[in-house]
């Protein structure tokens, strides 16, 4: 409870500030409307109006929650195209779009992490690879790789690859480098004394890898996986912008084009929830694995 109370306080403060901001930012429109209609407004009127506008400048928290609810549960269970009535997910619901984004993210993340892991092992065991590739891996973290995303989508589309694959490619690319850099650090983390000890046992490089380097690298692996999965999600979202075939990024862009404030916020919140779930699950796996390894904090 000691740890929860400060967090809850901060969250409550944020929600409170949000409500105040909602009233303040939407008030201009309310006042304009009232002026046009020649109506006098009391403070109470302003408050009730600003918290329930159709196209607010800033939707109130309860409006966002309501929209989320509408576009997920309600749409799927009662909507014409919802899963209850038609057997497939409705293309208006955020469950459908969220799933599109999530599947690309997960696939890309798995590929990126796998390849990154292999490259890291190569770098640690081969001097030439280390000296030639590592500087580029580190330098690439300073390059805004995400800028390439539209190009990859369009290029792959012109060779016939559409749907989940191009987005997964972007996600893979974005999770690849953090994993490489983190794993190299982790595989190199055992102390010199530990490695020397194994040498006195005449252990081979493979034995040293499986018995020492790999277990020692796990904390680093999980730390970079958390960064990588968040990056993969962003990659999938950005990958949905050029070719609008659904997904949370497409919803964000569509909402932005048509001025549908509530739609933008709902999509953004879904993305946030997705990010929390993804990073949280990596964290949960991390805790479970590290506890078994005796490395739990």
């Amino acid at each position, binding site marked *: 409870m000691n740890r929860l109370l400060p967090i809850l306080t901060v969250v409550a403060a944020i929600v409170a500030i949000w409500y105040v901001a909602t009233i303040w930012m939407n008030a201009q429109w309310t006042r304009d409307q009232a002026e046009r209609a020649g109506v006098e407004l009391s403070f109470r009127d302003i408050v009730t109006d600003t918290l329930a506008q159709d196209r607010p400048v800033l939707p109130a928290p309860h409006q966002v929650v309501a929209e989320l609810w509408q576009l997920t549960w309600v749409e799927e269970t009662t909507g014409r195209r919802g899963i209850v009535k038609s057997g497939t997910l409705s293309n208006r619901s955020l469950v459908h779009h969220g799933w599109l984004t999530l599947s690309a993210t997960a696939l890309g993340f798995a590929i990126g992490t796998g390849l990154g892991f292999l490259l890291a092992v190569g770098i640690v065991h081969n001097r030439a690879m280390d*000296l030639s590739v590592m500087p580029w891996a580190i330098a690439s973290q*300073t390059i805004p790789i995400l*800028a390439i995303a*539209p*190009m990859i989508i369009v290029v792959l589309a012109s060779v016939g690859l559409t749907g989940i694959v191009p987005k997964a490619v972007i996600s893979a690319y974005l999770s690849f480098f953090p994993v490489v850099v983190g794993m190299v650090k982790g595989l190199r983390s055992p102390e010199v004394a530990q490695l020397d000890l194994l040498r006195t046992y005449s252990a081979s490089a493979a034995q040293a890898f499986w018995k020492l380097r790999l277990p020692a690298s796990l904390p680093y692996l999980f730390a970079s996986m958390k960064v990588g999965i968040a990056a993969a999600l962003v990659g999938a979202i950005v990958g949905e912008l050029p070719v609008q075939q659904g997904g949370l990024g497409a919803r964000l862009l569509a909402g932005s084009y048509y001025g549908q404030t509530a739609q933008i916020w709902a999509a953004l919140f879904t993305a946030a929830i997705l990010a929390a779930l993804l990073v949280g699950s990596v964290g949960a796996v991390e805790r479970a694995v590290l506890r078994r390894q005796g490395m739990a904090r």
Partner: protein
Amino acid sequence: MIWLWGAILFWLAAWALNARLAAGPAARHPAVRLAIPALFGVTLLVLWEGIVRGLQVSPVILPAPTEIGATIAASLPILWGDFVQTIVKGALSGYVIGCSAAVATAIAIDRSPFLQRGLLPVGNFIAALPIVGTAPILVMWFGFDWQSKAAVVVVMVFFPVLVNTVAGLAASERMQRDLMATWSASYWQTLWKLRLPAAMPFIFNGLKIATTLALIGAIVAEFFGSPTRGMGFRISTAVGQLALPLVWAEIAVAALAGSAFYGLVAAIERGMTFWHPSQRGRP
């Protein structure tokens, strides 16, 4: 085909050379340590050129490095204009505002462990969210021009820098703070003379991460709406027109800007944290 075979030969020769250099006695020399990755990079470019020319890859899919180079040379005014719009106006201003706000906030909540315990988990959480998704909302509030992009950058860099600064302020050891107490130093004296200098390595770690985030934020935010200039704008429209050499040219500028920005912050870090073991090259 001769291009392809030439490129592959070059690759094998360069690989052999790199392997020799890496295994040889000269591997410690700084010039050699620079040459090896440079050779690797050049090899990639040669392979790229060879594959594109040898296999007759359409420039709509993958243009050759030489063609990209030509495009860069021919489009300098456009590239410069985009650079100023996105990097100088959008990313840089957002970076400065966001980082200063984060450091100031960290100092402001320094005296309240309660607020720290609350703000830090929330900050870590927000830092993991796809902040670029806020771009459409910020465009709605601040308009299409660079201000909304700067706003996205502010949101993106704020939390990582805040988390790092708070960690840095906590880094001074108990013993050091006790010593300050024996001299009856005030809170502000302790902050200014001990805790802020000791926090510098952490703060710069956050500032370096923030350079990349700033660039990404500014460019990607432009995918959501921008006046007719800017790197993100240029990339998305050029992609739509399948003018890929221009896209690659913009990306090259972005890569250069990213490395230069990061390098600048790293250079300042070396100057300000010359005393830290990581900067001294452990003996």
